[in-house]
């Protein structure tokens, strides 16, 4: 073949090759279309909102009754004190400063020779705190009503922090990272679905992950027992707490 032909053939191939590449890369780009709606997903969301609405209506009735009863009792000291004490009891449960008892699951996460032998790497446990608060997050996102890590109750102010390899803190109290027990009262099936991904994360750190069901109603989540004081946040409309 003449050099001229070789060159022209080469040029044609080059041109076609680059055209093909351009073609593929432009058309094959992942579609970032957020408008794709899925009816199944929408129906699930609709069901959630309907449940929520039912709860809101009952909550409004309850609050209206409570307001009325407070107004009626303004002159009657004993009854008013009793009504407020009853309310305080309920509010304490919601804040996590009263124990909760019921059905649920117990999760144990322990250093394990088998998990290390299977390829788990204990040096990955540097991010143990990260996976623990994600785990609690996923329990709460899956219908947990009360959670405790080594008997430290998780509340709205709870944090988890790894200070050093042997110093893991829950609610600013040190716990032993080698063996951790998490108790959660709530919807057992749903919480277990939420835990699907987690055994693998902990095995990769050389830890064993076990879940035990408690169905006799006797799983007790202790109360948060650190004194609480709000220095910055005050009820909207109040001048002073």
């Amino acid at each position, binding site marked *: *073949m003449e050099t001229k032909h070789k060159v022209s053939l080469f040029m044609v191939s080059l041109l076609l090759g680059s055209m093909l590449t351009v073609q593929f890369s432009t058309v094959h780009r992942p579609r970032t279309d957020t408008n794709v709606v899925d009816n199944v997903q929408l129906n699930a969301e609709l069901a959630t*909102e309907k449940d929520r609405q039912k709860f809101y209506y009952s909550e409004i009735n309850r609050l209206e009754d409570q*307001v009325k009863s407070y107004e009626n009792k303004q002159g009657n*000291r004993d009854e008013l004190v009793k009504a407020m004490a009853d*309310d305080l009891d309920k509010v304490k449960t*919601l804040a996590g400063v009263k124990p909760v008892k019921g059905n649920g699951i117990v999760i144990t996460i322990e250093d394990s020779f088998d998990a290390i032998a299977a390829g788990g790497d204990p040096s990955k446990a540097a991010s143990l705190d*990260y996976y623990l608060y994600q785990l609690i997050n996923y329990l709460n996102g899956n219908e947990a009503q009360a959670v405790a890590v080594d008997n430290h109750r998780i509340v709205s102010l709870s944090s988890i*922090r790894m200070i050093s390899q042997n110093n893991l803190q829950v609610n600013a109290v040190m716990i032993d990272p080698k063996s951790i027990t998490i108790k959660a009262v*709530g919807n057992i099936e749903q919480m277990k679905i939420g835990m699907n991904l987690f055994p693998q994360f902990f095995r990769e750190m050389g830890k064993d992950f076990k879940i035990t069901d408690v169905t006799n109603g006797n799983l007790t989540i202790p109360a948060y027992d650190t004194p609480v004081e709000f220095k910055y946040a005050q009820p909207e409309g109040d001048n002073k707490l």
Partner: protein
Amino acid sequence: MPFKTDKRMRLTVSLTMISVILGLMLSMQYKNMRVTADAQAKLPQTDPKAQYTAEQLDRIKDENKGLEEDIEKLNKQLHGLEKQAGDVDKNLAPEIRDDLTKYKIMAGLLAVKGPGITFTVDDNKKDIPADKDVLLYITHDSDLRMIVNELLIAGAEAVSINGQRITTTTGIVCIGTMVKVNNQRITTPFVFNAIGDPKNMINALETRGGVIEVLTRPENGRYLTITPPKQSPSITIPGYAGDFNGLKK
């Protein structure tokens, strides 16, 4: 010379053949892609069932938002009555009144106000290079939870994301492409409000190796957009109206 012509002919023929085949392939390829792309684009608009459900969903969501406001008003009214009871009757055990206020704030039932910070977390909206993982550019449930954890370590007393108060039982979880907080769908951008010592919280977020660096620096493998935390003398965080995963019956 005849030999040469023959060779040239053969070359021309084969070149033509190759060009024809390649041309055909290209056009088929292109058409094929166009058809699938069009089908994908048309899908959402042509499902009337989904559209109907979506409309219903929008309506009930609006209604629920109104009910949430009613609940917040009633909670405020109740709080006012409790305070009033304590003011009128000095013998009324003051600790009951104060504990009620304290634990209502802690549970997340009462709307609160105070000094704090605000900032916004968003996906990276720039074009994502073809060789990079899209997941590194979008905000995950775990990112939001990480930020909440850091704020609480720094002493935050109340936190909200897009108006959703962080309570005793709050979960921040992704279901498919949705982020749900308190079982309510929220979308980008994610606006954080936190009440507490503003300097402490800003330092915790902005410190070297802190959460903002971890989530926004390419050398850490993440590319989120986070606005610098702004200090404010008065941040308002709404109360939570929900059922605490069924704990409140």
